[in-house]
């Protein structure tokens, strides 16, 4: 009844789209469909019919992503050198940060991995991330940032307790 008079209306229900482009939905219900307009529902159903090979391929893409980063990381590591300054530290930080982030959001990533090889792909994905992490740790090791030597724990060594007291000296 009122729809006729209003050119647009705000839709509150469909709000989980992007923040900026929420809201404005033209009230076009009663307009006649334009020439050549087809009902969308048929188009939407098309992916369901997509072949499982494509799904597999896409899933492999996701699963191999971290491993593909490894040569790149190697190059960056080599470029960064082993001196302790702001850029190498930033690089190392990034190298740590990315795999850890990926591991944290692993649930979301796994959702998009489908197909019959899913379990294997998930494993490959995890291994890839761990390899990245291992490389970061190795980089830290070569830069000498890991407390692996006795000298790194020297500050926490307690002084030796004295078992005997001695005093004296020359005659006054």
């Amino acid at each position, binding site marked *: 009844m009122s729809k006729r008079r209003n050119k647009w209306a705000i839709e509150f229900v469909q709000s989980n789209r992007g923040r900026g482009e929420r809201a404005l939905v033209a009230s076009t219900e009663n307009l006649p469909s334009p020439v050549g307009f087809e009902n969308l529902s048929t188009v939407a159903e098309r992916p369901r019919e997509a072949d499982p090979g494509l799904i597999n391929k896409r899933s492999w893409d996701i699963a191999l992503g971290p491993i593909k980063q490894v040569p790149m990381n190697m190059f960056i590591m080599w470029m960064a050198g082993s001196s302790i300054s702001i850029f190498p530290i930033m690089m190392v930080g990034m190298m740590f940060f990315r795999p850890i982030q990926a591991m944290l959001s692993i649930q979301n990533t796994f959702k998009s991995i489908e197909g019959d090889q899913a379990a294997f792909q998930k494993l490959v994905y995890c291994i890839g991330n761990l390899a990245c992490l291992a490389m970061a740790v190795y980089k830290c090791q070569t830069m000498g940032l890991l407390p692996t030597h006795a000298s790194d724990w020297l500050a926490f060594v307690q002084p030796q307790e004295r*078992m*005997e007291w001695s005093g004296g000296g020359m005659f*006054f």
Partner: protein
Amino acid sequence: MANTSKTVAAFLVLIYITVCCSFGLYEDQAGLFDWKQDYVGKVKYFYWDHSPSQSGKKAFIASERNVIASLHAHDGTIAWRRIFEPTVRGRIDAFLYQGTNLVSIHAGGLFVRSWQTLSGSLLWEKSLSDDINSRASGFFVSKNNKGEQQLIVATSGTVYSLRMSDGMEEWKAEMPHSDTIVQWYVKERIDGSYIAVGITPGQRVTVVTITTDGGVSKTHTNVPARWISIDTSCIIMDDAKHFACYSPQSRSLQLLVLDNANVFKATEVSAFDVPTSPESQIEGLLPGMASSIIFRAAHDRLLFMALTPQETFFTHKTLEKTYTAEVVRYAEKYILLTLSQADPETLKLSATDQSDGTEITDLSHDIPFAHYHGPPTKIHPFLFSKKKDSSHRPGCKLIFLAQDFSIHFAQKSKLNDENKAHWRREEALAYILAVQMVDLPVSENQAKFEDEFGAKEEDIVAMFFKRLKAQFSQLKSFTHTLIERALGHHHHHAKSLEAIEEEEPQEEDLIRDDFNLHKIIIVATAAGKLYGIRSHTGKIAWQQFIPELTPFNRYGDQKLVLIVQRSTAHFPHEPQCTVLGVNQKTGNGLLVSFNPVTGALTMGKQGHSYDTGFKVLQAEMITDLDSEFLRGIILIDDKIQAHVYPASSESALRESHMQYFFHLINPETGIMTGYRLIPGQQSKLALEEVWNLDLQKSQQTITGVYGKRAVEHVHSQGRVLGDRSVLYKYLNPNLVAIVAEGEEQQQSSVSKGSPTPFFSVYLVDGVTGHMVYHQTHKRSRGPVKVVHSENWIVYFYYNEKHRRHEMGVLELYEGKEQSNSTAFSSFSPPPPPLVLRQSYIFREPLYAMEATVTEKGIASKNIIIALKIGGILSLPKALLDPRRPVIPTQETMEEGTIPYVPEIPLSAEAFVNYNRSVFNVNGVFTSPAGLESTSLVFVYGIDIFYTRVMPSRMFDVLKEDFDYLFIGGVLGLMILFSFITQKFAAKKALKRAWK
């Protein structure tokens, strides 16, 4: 070529490191963290300046510390000062003044120096004798026929007459018995000839006449005098016919008639009905009375004695209850000035006309005089007529010396405003033997907080109430200071405090500051005087005089022991310090305990000091606290029995988990003996001999034993090497370094006869007697100065072979494994340590050195060195590292060692006393401050100097020039901007949404 480039690189690295590790002060920081005080020492000779322009404005003094100086009479500051060698070569035998001539005679005539009175510059110098063990004497004569002044100097072998204008020799007279005589007393006769009396200690006196032109009479008379010694007080009487001495052994006055000398005539002092005392001596001649002397019977009794025609003494005046007296000639009259006690804090100066005995009221007055100076010993009045008054009434400037070596000035003021014309110099501070620094107590509020946690069992409500109370009082004091600051009251307060001087220490002033940088410096001096000095201003907070306290004295090496028994950390117990010395009367050990903050002496059964009743051979503080948080002192008597002071502290020994050991070194036998202390149940402490170590007395003499300091903490247990492994330090707390010096007869034919000196350094475990390391330096001699700290020993010596001073360093390491990481026991010691050693050339001779100490031992160490050129050098220990590589590699760079250069560089920035040179330094004392980066340094000698050093730079405090306002402002602005931009961003987003 490669070699030179390498050395250049090494030098560059070295320069970089020295520049980065040492840092000077900025110009405006001079005097901000440091202060220096100049002293002259105990006055031996004193003259008022009588030159026309400076008459009465200055005074000349010569002191026991081999110093001559001119003091301003109006405030006691030093106009000029000349310091001579502290050894016997600088000893002042005579100091003469007349008109504009000022002459000092040193070391038996080794030097005769004439000084310009106004500036203290040297006019001429002459060396007459090299018999430095004898004493020279001298006096001025004026020859009327030439109108020229002459100086007669008598050395042990010859009497010289020198022209005063240029020091040229007029004549000289060879004296008999020059090999045995140590001192000549010479006096001019009326006819212009001279009479000389020479003293051979323990044997005789020799009487010789010298003619006007230096001819010596062929016959000389020897008179036996077995009682005479070099310190006997003797005098030739005014008429040059009598020679009088006081013999302390027989307590008699000895008189010799010089014209027909054959025997001394003795007069017992007891015949005059006066008791004698150790102070008894002939003070001098009595002016205005023929053949009269002033004789001091006791510290408060003086006798005026004259000769009868029968050549015996009689007393014509006895001054009872008079400390000191002087007869001065003024306006054709002889005026007697005496100093006596009016009441405990006041002295009375009285002046009487000698001719008629009337008192001159213009001169007599009362002088305020604190009890802690001891009785006055000598007065030096200066009489003048007041020119402003038409009546020409006499005035008197009075300088008097007291038993504690202090110099006092007093002058009667017209308007009765006291203290105006009154100053004093605390010359005992030139005789400091022991130093400690004590924390100031926390403020009242802080103490309340401490109290909160100190109580053991209390319910929550009471504790909450306490906390509220403490915080309320904190708030109150905060508002109080705020108000004070707002009113600008604080500033005035500080000023007025300065004006009333240090007499009344303001209670709130003696409070710990934020970083615990301000301390009380406790010093014990050879005069028996104790001082508490505020470290930040250098002012004396309190002083105590203990006349019976004298230092231990072994071969002229004086020593006092000062121990902090309880620090200020144990509120509400008062802090306690104890000084150990020798009782002057009994020769036994003397202990004096006092509160280091207030200076109050702790009263015991025997009054304020405690005579141990035995001679003390050695003493050491126990590290364990007893039930009253007191650290006891173990005293070893001459029968090798152990005692504990106070006796109640012995419980700490019994309850301790440690075993106690003691080692004693007898330098006469060269044997080091180790003992075990067995705390018995029946309060008797037993000493059990455990081991013996013979250090070969026949070849060498032990000159020093150096342990580690008890306050020292070692934070890092090892040293990180270039390959990131750890070299663990050998930190044996019982290790002592022993230095023995000796001479070795050369066997080779090259240099036969002349012995070559050597010295040895022994590192001995004080518990087991195990010799950890031993090193001998051939063709090197001492005096060896040693610093022993952490796991290293640095020692300084003179290398005779290369004729240069060197610094040796030993560093001890356990190796790459620590055998026992939790405890150190000398009975299961780690394997023999790795000893790294190196020596470096150090181009300057030095007086003393000491390592810095910090609170936790994290900051790196510097060595504070007092150089003989007057500088105080703060030398990073890293420069004295035996691991400095000859060829620097990547690994050594990683480790941070400085490339090896044989010489230690002295950079001007490393002199912490910039242009304030200090001389004749006796020692350096370092103490930790509340800040880890900071160590406090106190240098003492004839001057005292205080400063603070930061060996690792100031890493725990923002710099003084840190711009708080700027940084704070920027921070505030950024916060503001972030708020504003957030608002803007939100607005913009909204706008975009509306598009």
